[in-house]
């Protein structure tokens, strides 16, 4: 069964930033050599931090639990290399979280190179018998493996898969849009490891009891669509092509584009009977359930004019950003801005000792020439931001209210529905930092209601 | 503006002296520019100097008479009735002023039209009765009213000067601008009143803020 209509579907508003996928879309995933040390952050997800369970100077093997999740909404972290635990330290993650990390110095036998790649994506993925696995078993495996949403939200997967006695879920959407410019990690994953992705999707559906599974892929990834369509029918999974438009990969927009369901403001896709899962998360779930392997590595893109050899890398969690960049040939002389994630929603970082986390989908390195030299000017109320806002808000009004400290006013313009996708600031002819101002307003409003 | 004054308690203290009241009324607490009181006549009758000055004279007469009168009867006032008494006192003097104007300056009386009776509701007068007249003696009340009248004169005079010179090229009806200079008719019309007062107020605010800014630098 394939997607009923071959016409690309999409959502209202949005923007068309330059796609810039050419940097690494045709570069196969490369395994990064085991680094001398990694630093495992104890908080890589949305929720409570883990408690460290290994003492300094203890020896750990790949996949050993380093931090245990003790709160309901939390996820354990595991050693991503074999080695010796060092004294705890702190690190500021790209998203601004200041967390305790457990450094591990490499020692002993390491799983490396092709063997590591095969452990992740190669080998056999049994298609039969998936329906016999108990949902609880899947949820437990996801919890033990420390699975979190790998598209960036980093919400613990076992919590998402066990929504409790709420409305029944009928559809699982697998998010393969990767609408952020520059990033190609998900595309490579779909092209190289379609089977684990789809098996994982099947497991997600099994866990939540959904009958229908749809993979959503943007039209600008024909090879990925072809590969997924080759494998999907075997598993009864539909592959839906959506228009190439940003932010196609945002949950609510994807749900609308593929299913024409509108997620009410302040609610989750769950409330309309949908669970959305990123392709990388699905692949990791397949590995966790069928191979019992925890989440220790992830695929990330390092691309942009600012790196010498743009690549897609399979990296251990806790790798320093600088080492990931070195693996991609290092920074060029005119590199100006390093962004953890894609350029639309990613966070700029300047201190490159920060560790890679489960949610780091890539590093975009912009050169000076990629950056805009236009100065900020006064808002001329042209309404461009209104035209592009996928949430149908009035970004300029919220931002202006935030600038003048009129928090209630900002709230009355539905500031809290903003998903910070960046369309408004991308389209703004006056180059106002709209998203930043809206985030200020959101933070303030959250504080006021707290 | 007037609200704050109306809410003030009928305090027992003696307050500023007559001289202080007089001086304060002229510039530091200028009714037009500092307290923004009596805006209606400031806008309505300032198209030219003559009606403006007539207005000031009528207002001054009422202000002084009412303030002194209120001061004389201040010990008889009951708090909840005082505003009513003030208003009726003022209304009486306004009627007198109106009749005097009609008798001796008929053209002016016609020109000012309803704005003479509207003196009754001029906030300056109620504010002065409330702040000074109802609390201090007749002499202080007189000084206070006189000072505020002078302040009102400055306010109306400056607005009227700007409007008459720009709008008609005259001052007190005497030509001051050569005929080649174009007349800005807008200045003698309602929008001109608002704009002239707005800019004069801005000028005063700017001047007030100036020394402070210097001290900072």
């Amino acid at each position: 069964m394939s997607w009923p209509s071959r016409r690309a579907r999409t959502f209202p508003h949005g923007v068309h930033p330059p796609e810039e996928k050419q940097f690494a879309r045709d570069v196969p995933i490369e395994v990064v050599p085991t680094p001398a040390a990694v630093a495992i952050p104890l908080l890589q997800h949305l929720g409570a931090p883990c408690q460290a369970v290994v003492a300094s100077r203890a020896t750990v093997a790949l996949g050993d639990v380093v931090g245990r999740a003790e709160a309901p909404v939390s996820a354990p972290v595991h050693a991503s290399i074999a080695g010796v635990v060092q004294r705890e330290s702190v690190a500021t993650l790209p998203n601004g979280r200041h967390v305790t990390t457990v450094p591990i110095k490499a020692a002993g036998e390491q799983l490396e190179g092709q063997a590591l790649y095969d452990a992740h994506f190669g080998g056999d993925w049994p298609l039969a018998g998936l329906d016999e696995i108990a949902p609880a078993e899947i949820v437990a495996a996801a919890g033990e493996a420390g699975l979190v949403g790998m598209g960036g939200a980093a919400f613990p997967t076992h919590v998402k898969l066990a929504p409790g006695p709420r409305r029944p879920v009928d559809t699982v959407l697998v998010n393969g849009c990767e609408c952020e410019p520059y990033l190609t990690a998900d595309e490579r994953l779909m092209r190289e490891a379609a089977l684990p992705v789809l098996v994982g999707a099947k497991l997600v559906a099994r866990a939540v009891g959904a009958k229908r599974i749809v993979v959503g892929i943007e039209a600008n990834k024909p090879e990925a669509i072809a590969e997924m369509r080759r494998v999907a029918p075997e598993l009864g999974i539909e592959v839906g092509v959506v228009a190439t438009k940003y932010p196609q990969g945002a949950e609510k927009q994807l749900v609308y584009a593929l299913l024409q369901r509108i997620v009410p403001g302040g609610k989750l896709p769950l409330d309309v009977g949908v669970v959305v899962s990123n392709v990388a998360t699905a692949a990791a779930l397949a590995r966790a359930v069928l191979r019992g392997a925890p989440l220790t590595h992830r695929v990330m893109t390092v691309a942009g004019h600012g790196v010498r050899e743009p690549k897609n890398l399979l990296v251990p969690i806790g790798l320093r950003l600088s080492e990931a960049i070195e693996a991609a040939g290092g920074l060029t002389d005119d590199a100006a801005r390093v962004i953890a994630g894609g350029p639309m929603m990613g966070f700029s970082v300047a201190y490159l000792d920060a560790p890679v986390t489960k949610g780091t989908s890539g590093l975009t390195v912009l050169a000076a020439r990629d950056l805009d030299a236009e100065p900020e000017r006064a808002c001329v109320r042209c309404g461009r931001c209104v035209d592009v806002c996928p949430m149908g808000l009035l970004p300029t009004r919220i931002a202006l209210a935030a600038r003048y400290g009129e928090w209630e006013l900002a709230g009355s313009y539905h500031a809290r529905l903003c998903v910070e996708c960046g369309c408004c600031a991308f389209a703004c002819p006056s180059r106002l930092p709209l998203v930043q101002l809206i985030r200020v307003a959101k933070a303030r409003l959250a504080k006021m209601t707290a | 503006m007037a609200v704050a004054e109306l809410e003030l308690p009928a305090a027992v203290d003696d307050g500023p002296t007559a001289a202080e009241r007089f001086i304060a009324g002229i510039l530091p607490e200028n009714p037009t520019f500092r307290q923004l009181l009596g805006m209606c006549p400031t806008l309505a009758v300032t198209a030219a100097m003559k009606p403006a000055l007539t207005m000031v004279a009528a207002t001054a007469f009422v202000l002084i008479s009412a303030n002194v009168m209120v001061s004389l009867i201040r010990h008889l006032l009951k708090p909840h009735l005082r505003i009513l008494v003030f208003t009726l006192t003022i209304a009486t003097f306004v009627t007198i002023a109106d009749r005097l104007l009609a008798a001796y300056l008929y053209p002016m009386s016609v020109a000012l039209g309803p704005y003479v009776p509207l003196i009754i509701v001029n906030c300056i007068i109620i504010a002065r009765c409330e702040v000074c007249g109802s609390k201090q003696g007749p002499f202080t009340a007189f000084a206070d009213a006189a000072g505020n009248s002078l302040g009102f004169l400055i306010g109306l005079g400056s607005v009227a000067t700007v409007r008459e010179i720009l709008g008609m090229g005259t001052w007190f009806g005497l030509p001051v601008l050569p005929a080649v200079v174009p007349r800005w008719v807008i200045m003698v019309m309602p929008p001109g009143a608002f704009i002239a007062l707005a800019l004069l107020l801005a000028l005063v605010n700017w001047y007030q803020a100036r020394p402070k800014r210097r001290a900072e630098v």
Partner: protein
Amino acid sequence: MTGETMALVGLGSGVMLLLAVVGGAVLGWADRRFFVPVDPRVERINRALPGANCGNCGFVGCGEYAEAVAAGGTALTLCAPGGPAVVGALAAIMGVEAEQTWPYRVIVHCTATTGMRLRRHPYQGEPTCTAANLVTDVQGCIYGCLGLGDCERACTYDAIHVVDGVAVVDYTKCTGCGDCVDACPRGIISRVPFKTDRILAVGCANQDFGNDVKAVCTIGCIGCKACAKLAPSLVMKGNLPVIDYDKYEPGFDFLPAIDKCPAESLVWVGTPSPKDLEALADVEMPVRAEATFDTTVDQTEWRG
């Protein structure tokens, strides 16, 4: 005077009298019919308050605060602009005995000037602390002052300024209203009772381990606990000493503790005006704003 004039005057007076009687009767009836009881103290408290409607007390305006005070159960000391004089007046109206207390002032828990902060990076974006606080790596220390002056803009009294990259309080102007405490996104300003002209303060907010502090600041507190051993009102909270100002003894000799500090984290701040120290006829100040050292950059959800 002719009879006609007399008659006219009589008629006029009669009309006015009639009006007055009718009006008076209607209003008198309405006064009883529409009577709404009001606590007379509300009016008096309203008069005693400054009427600035600044909202520092946490109520919508002076009027609402007055009602809350009159209703009882609300502290009399919430009016920052009014100061001790207003507290005294309110106490007199409410018939409460005034107690001894101290003027409150703010302290900035960061003293590192620009050159002392490490890992600073050029920042392009909205030039306010609150906005910059949402961007990673503006500077290495995620606790310390960002120096973009949100507190300076929030201050009504021109009493706090960013000097060489760090906020410095001008204690000759500070009234302790606490606007800057609310404005600081990093929560490094606290509001404490000043028991002497100059009191000791911890001039650092970094709660990390010593090595991590050294990596981002040349003068930050490394959490060695030396001062806590030497002065009883200094207690360690995690890796940072905190002064308990309720137990603060003005006469205590803090010099050994200060000498022992390997960083430069114990500083003397303040000089409240003598006027404030004299006019101490107020009850205990219950609102004590503690610095939160709140650095969380992103309270909002993360999405993909």
